[in-house]
């Protein structure tokens, strides 16, 4: 590697929170609309997002490029670790290992998920209004549902535990007590986010997502 790895790693850390982490939270809010507002609410969220000005630039610079950088550099970071949990089974060391494992899982999951949704929209196979129907098709296949659950758990864990590390790496939580409190906070955040995402995913099982006719009615 040429250049200064300090800046590479800092950029990797920053992009994981802004914009990627922020997008994950936004994504959760939009999807949760499927759970508490049904098909109409979900599509409203999708359309609001797509009505933002310069949406293509936002997607490119706000999601795709940061994701690509975080993913590729993250693979390098994961590759350079020599995990040793068998000898040092401490809590933080296990989190260290899981952070790397969930990072790889999340990358695979995102690639697949983006292919099934955003790429299909780009190819013209699906319209924005049909995304709820698309998700219904995916969620009703038991194997896809199971894989989505794994992907969701990996992604939310990676985000929450990553936030814990971010706060240490930027020197915000310094002492052992601050770091312990931060562990609890992010563990709760992980459970809440994972449950909310899985509820949203289950919401797509509902027959109201079978076609877009409910949208025209409302």
């Amino acid at each position, binding site marked *: *590697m040429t250049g*200064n*790895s*300090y800046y*590479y*790693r*800092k950029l990797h850390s920053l992009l994981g929170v802004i914009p990627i982490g922020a997008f994950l939270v936004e994504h959760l809010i939009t999807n949760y609309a499927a759970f508490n507002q049904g098909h109409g609410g979900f599509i409203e969220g999708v359309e609001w997002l797509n009505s933002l000005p310069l949406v293509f630039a936002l997607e490119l610079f706000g999601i795709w490029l940061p994701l690509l950088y975080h993913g590729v550099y993250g693979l390098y*970071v994961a*590759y*350079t*670790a*020599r*995990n*040793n949990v068998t*000898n*040092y089974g*401490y809590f*933080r*060391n296990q*989190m*260290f*290992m899981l*952070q790397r494992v969930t990072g790889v899982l999340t990358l695979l999951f995102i690639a697949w998920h983006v292919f099934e949704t955003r790429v299909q929209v780009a190819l013209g196979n699906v319209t924005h209004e049909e995304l709820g129907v698309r998700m219904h098709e995916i969620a009703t296949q038991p194997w896809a549902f199971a894989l989505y659950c794994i992907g969701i758990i990996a992604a939310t864990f990676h985000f929450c535990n990553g936030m*814990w*590390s971010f706060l*240490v*790496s*930027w*020197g*915000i*939580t*310094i*002492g*052992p007590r601050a*770091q312990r409190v931060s562990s609890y906070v992010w563990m709760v955040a992980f459970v809440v986010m994972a449950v909310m995402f899985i509820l949203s995913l289950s919401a797509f099982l509902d027959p109201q997502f079978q076609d877009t006719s409910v949208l025209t009615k409302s």
Partner: protein
Amino acid sequence: MAEAVADKKNVRFIITRQDSADSPSYTEEFEVPYRPNMNVISALMEIQRTPVNANGKKTTPVCWESNCLEEVCGACSMVINGKPRQACSALVDHLEQPIRVAPMKTFPVVRDLVINRERMFSALKRVKAWIPIDGTYDLGPGPRMAETKRQWAYELSKCMTCGVCLESCPNVNDKTSFIGPAAISQVRLFNTHPTGEMNKDERLETLMEDGGIEGCGNSQNCVRSCPKGIPLTTSIAAINADTTKHLFKKWLSF
């Protein structure tokens, strides 16, 4: 634990050996007569006196390094029953048998249990872990250190460069150039000192280069392993804060 020692007469050792720096490693077993209060070093001394392995075959004596014999020099660090620690303070009565002894392979192995900790000393040179007071004339006394600071800084000064924290760290390995926790904690120590503080930025800048503080992945094994109980992860996080501040200061002062 003492009950677990079935045979009080003999202590069994499984030692990972290596004849030279680049020859393959192998294990050899030894039976050492038990003596009360013996430690791993005294067992190794016994093997040195009678270099016969557990099969009764004559062998070369096992090489190791030790010096102070009171856990302050760090020379006798090795992996004992899976954990890196000092052999001189590893009491046989407190260890599960057979006792497995191996070199700290994060460092180049010279022979048997002898390793080369050179990288730790060059790391200290790299971060300038000293206080420059030399001049062409008497500079007079420096500023005083506040007692409240001195108390926690003293804890950091207990580091004996033993290498245990580097051995336990998953990010200090052949694939990275990470400087390791010990040197980062020393930067905090010397940056805290009122005279050392005058060269604060230089030390921070060396940690903001390849192999610097970014190599830390927060596994926190170091703080769990340090025999001196040095708050390494607090030091790393504090230096994270200082390097972050330094980063923004540099950008804003363009």
